[in-house]
């Protein structure tokens, strides 16, 4: 029997929240793996990617089913379209968490190959970047669940903080490269982690913009500079 549109929309929302929490867990674990250079945590992130991919396909199928069977309009249409777009962002954030986890494995492999025991110096801006990126994604999920557009605008503002932190990290890494030549092999990997986090925050900002469209019907992309 065909579900009514409200039940289908509610079901889709639950699937999306579940996918969101799995992706959030993946990002948190990837960050923890970077902080501790823990191979086990990094492997956990990589193992979880299949699950994210499968959940993404599932959400997309649900969206297509609702579009085909119910031809939603107004808030229902905006919801389904937003979920379709967020779904892609979620999956890409999952991929980026994997790339970050990959770098942890690469750093540890490089250290082993070089027989190095000197500590890896992470620029201090990483702390802010870790926290802000995680918060941005959590706020997106909260905004989606609580239908809170104020939180979305906050996420858009936070994206600028992450961009600034990444710029500062790049400058710090150039300094480290000059002062600590023994760390040079790791610096591209560390920069790559910063780039991954920055891209995660970009996706979170896109999600926030899409949720604003879902809630208010306004497309704010390219429109505002916060």
């Amino acid at each position: 029997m065909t579900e009514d549109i409200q039940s289908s929309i509610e079901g889709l929302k639950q699937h999306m929240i579940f996918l969101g929490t799995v992706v959030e867990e993946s990002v948190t674990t990837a960050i923890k793996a970077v902080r501790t250079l823990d191979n086990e945590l990094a492997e956990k992130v990589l193992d979880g990617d299949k699950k994210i991919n499968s959940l993404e396909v599932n959400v997309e199928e649900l969206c297509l089913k609702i579009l085909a069977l119910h031809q939603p309009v107004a808030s229902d249409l905006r919801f389904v379209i937003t979920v379709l777009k967020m779904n892609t962002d979620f999956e890409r954030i999952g991929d980026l968490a994997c790339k970050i986890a990959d770098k942890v494995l690469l750093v540890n492999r490089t250290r082993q190959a070089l027989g190095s025991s000197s500590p890896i110096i992470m620029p201090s801006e990483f702390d802010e970047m870790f926290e802000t990126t995680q918060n941005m994604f959590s706020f997106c999920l909260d905004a989606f669940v609580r239908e809170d557009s104020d939180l979305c605008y906050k996420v858009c503002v936070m994206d600028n903080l992450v961009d600034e932190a990444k710029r500062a990290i790049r400058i710090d890494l150039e300094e480290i490269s000059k002062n600590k030549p023994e760390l040079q092999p790791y610096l591209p990997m560390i920069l790559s982690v910063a780039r991954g986090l920055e891209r995660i925050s970009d996706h979170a900002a896109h999600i926030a913009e899409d949720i604003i469209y879902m809630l208010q019907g306004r497309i704010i992309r390219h429109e505002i500079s916060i």
Partner: protein
Amino acid sequence: MKNDNRNPIIAIEDSIVQVRDLNLFYGTSQALFNLNFDIPRNKVTALIGPSGCGKSTFIRCINRMNDLVACVNINGSIQLDQQDIFDKSVDVIDLRRKIGMVFQKSNPFPKSIYENVIYGLRIGGVTEKPVLEEAAELSLKRSALWDEVKDRLHQSAMGLSGGQMQRLCIARAIAVSPEIILMDEPCSALDPRSTAHIEELIRELNGEYTIIIVTHNMQQASRVSDFTAFLYEGELIEFGKTTDLFTVPVKKATEDYITGRFG
């Protein structure tokens, strides 16, 4: 909801009909409440709303079909080309020549296809055969029926399919070159293919005629119309561009109705 009818009249650049403070009563029962809006010229305007909300009552005001109902009392005005259609000086026959109508159930006359199409012209006094033949061909072509009936124009219209009969009624309506075509649920008795034909036809006529269509089919309203009016319990709740109304409706009642939460 009764007191929620304070929509500012949406500015329509080129409107053909201006509805002002329109109230309609069936005896003591009020069916339309203080309607105020403009209908854009040569565009398709859809009227949506639950059964009994006054959609059909409203379009029957435009060609004064409600004159035929004894207990109807109307106040307010409907201006067509700067003239109030309720004015005593208005010739109703002339008004109905300007405003064609297509009904839910197709109603061809028990005559030939050709005679059906030219019926309005004959009544209007046109007798020249070449003029009538040209009008019949043009109207049938515009209603996308010509290819299907050109070889049997003088056969009975009653032998056509439901979808063809409805297109014949549209051809009959446009043969007299009306300014406005009113359509009261023109596809509700048709199968999806015939419905698609009629919808395509509406889109083709868009730009040449002002079409006002009553429909219960939300998807149809969103597919064929440029503007949509949502009526509820005799009041105009929202009127605007169809793309806006179906993506970001302003009123909660509109949102609830088009998403199927009530009605």
